[in-house]
């Protein structure tokens, strides 16, 4: 399968009064055509920063410190602002975790969707408006004609998210980045939004990079998943493979920490806490919390190796066989 987006060795740094913070360190993964890739990790693991970096929207005091972001043969890291502007919204689009506040309060919802058609597809006003209403209907907003004339504050959270999705898909992008799209939504609304994403992805052929901290969302919605810890991508695998045979110590701890309802078990939190990213340590950032840690782990950063078809891990313990197979 071809890759729509190839993220290779991307690093993002932020300058602070205390020094430089390595928010993302050498992250690598790819999003394939037509798939939904989950990007999962704790708060502060660098998931959102990665998304912002892909769109080249990192602003001072942050900067893209290295790596390549290849979309359809072009490296976004090398393009200038003018070309990037043409790509945003048309080839890549993003929806955020705060749908209500992500809509302009002063313009009607219909106008916000329509102007994207005018901007990206060059459609005249009337045509753009028609397409906007079509789009609203497609994302499941009832009475789209009437709703298009309303303002953001008159929509519920779930509705706003649907509008965001409509805006994101307006120009039929090849890649949709969904940054925690269900945070702040109640469980049933969240489920419906995820269903919508899956359906629209299949219908339009767009690939989706789904960023979340919720393993449940990953399990139900994604085909493959990349796990991030403290700014590093530590494991990439098909969903089944990840849950059945988690390889990286962090992933194992994560999977183990999911509470079970089918049998009695002890709640096992992931031990330790995320290390400071300020002047971060050189090697594997899980070293401080890992039961199989070695000296080498603290000095060198492990590279991604395959432990099974399509299943990659960055861990010396797994490589050397010190970590038992699951």
């Amino acid at each position: 399968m071809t890759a729509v987006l190839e993220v290779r060795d991307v690093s993002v740094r932020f300058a602070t009064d205390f020094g430089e913070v390595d928010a993302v360190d050498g992250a690598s993964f790819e999003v394939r055509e037509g798939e939904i890739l989950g990007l999962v990790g704790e708060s502060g693991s660098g998931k959102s920063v990665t998304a912002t970096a892909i769109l080249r929207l990192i602003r001072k005091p942050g900067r893209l410190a290295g790596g390549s972001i290849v979309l359809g043969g072009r490296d976004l890291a090398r393009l200038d602002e003018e070309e990037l502007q043409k790509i945003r919204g048309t080839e890549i689009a993003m929806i955020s975790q705060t749908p209500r506040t992500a809509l302009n309060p002063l313009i009607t919802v219909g106008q916000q969707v329509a102007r994207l058609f005018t901007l990206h597809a060059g459609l005249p006003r009337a045509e753009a408006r028609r397409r906007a209403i079509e789009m609203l209907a497609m994302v499941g907003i009832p009475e789209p004609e009437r709703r298009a004339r309303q303002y953001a504050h008159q929509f519920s959270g779930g509705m706003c998210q649907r509008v965001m999705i409509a805006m994101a898909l307006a120009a039929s992008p090849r890649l949709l980045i969904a940054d925690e799209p269900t945070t702040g939504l109640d469980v049933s609304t969240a489920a419906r939004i995820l269903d919508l994403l899956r359906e629209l992805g299949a219908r339009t052929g767009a690939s989706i990079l789904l960023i979340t901290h919720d393993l449940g969302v990953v399990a139900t919605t994604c085909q493959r998943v990349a796990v991030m810890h403290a700014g590093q991508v530590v494991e990439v695998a098909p969903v089944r493979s990840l849950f059945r045979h988690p390889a990286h110590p962090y992933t194992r701890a994560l999977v183990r920490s999911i509470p079970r309802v089918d049998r009695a078990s002890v709640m096992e939190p992931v031990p330790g806490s995320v290390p400071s990213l300020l002047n971060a340590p050189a090697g594997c950032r899980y070293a401080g919390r890992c039961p199989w840690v070695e000296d080498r782990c603290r000095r060198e950063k492990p590279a991604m190796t395959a432990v099974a078809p399509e299943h990659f891990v960055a861990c010396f313990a797994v490589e050397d066989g010190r970590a038992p197979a699951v």
Partner: protein
Amino acid sequence: MAFLAYFLRRLSLVIPTLIGVTVITFTLTYVLPGNPAVVKAGPLVSPEVVKELEKEMGLDQPAWVQYGRYISGVLHGDLGQSHSTGRPVLQDFRQRLPATLELTLASLLIALVLGIPLGVQSAVHRDTAIDHIGRIVGVAGVAMPTFWTGLLGLYVFFYMLGVAPPPLGRLGAGIEPPAAITGLYVVDSLLTANWTALGSALHQLMLPALTLGLSVMAPIARMVRSTMLEILESDYIKAAWAAGIPRRRVIYGDALANAMIPVVTILGIVFGFLMAGNAVVESVFAWPGIGNYAIASLMTKDSGPIQSFVLFVALLYVIVNFVIDILYGLIDPRIRLE
């Protein structure tokens, strides 16, 4: 429907304030040392006549009755007499109001035309040279007394450079005022194509309006800056960037439009500053407005004009703020539609 409720709620707050304002103005008049009857009658009159006058003026009545008379007087347009001009205060006001109005509007225009772009650029180019200069100018500007900047302007532009006219009023010597339609010379001369009057009116208006305008420019620029900074960090602006909307559109379209709403709210306060600064600027430039009128009567201890001026300004301030509140409700769809 919700807007009507908003309107009525605002109205219900305004009315007690208006009443309170009249109470305060009345109290100030009441507290004045000296006997108004004596002042009116003059020094050469016998005590009996003074007593008669007191009865006539209702000065022997209890306070609240006098307040009632005061209010009814105000409502009927009776603001007392000016001892210096010998005419009813109301008449003097009407004659002088257009001058003050013209100055205030011109100053507001200058403040907005200069202040808003300054604030926007400061925000967009945050922490660069432009921003720092803008902020320094703002901070320094707020510390300068309006009378001083006016005098400075006079010295530099009139005495040194000769581009500004001597502060003799609204029109240069020998120029006839244009036909009175609005009372604003600039507008009237435009409407009647009276180019000599237009040129002279603008020339005379230039320095005082600039002085007053610059004095209120700083708070406007500062407000615009901080609002823009906030808005540029907001989710919908970030979403607009991500959606590929061109930079200029995002800043000068979406962001600015949203920034204007909080700015509208401070226009009321700005108006208050303008009214306060008006009096002083009119004094410096001998501008024949109501502020100058009030200050001149201060010197002659002519109390009628002062108290009426204060009442007028306060009432106007309250009403302007009320109108701005309502306007705000109309502009912001979040308030307009429940």
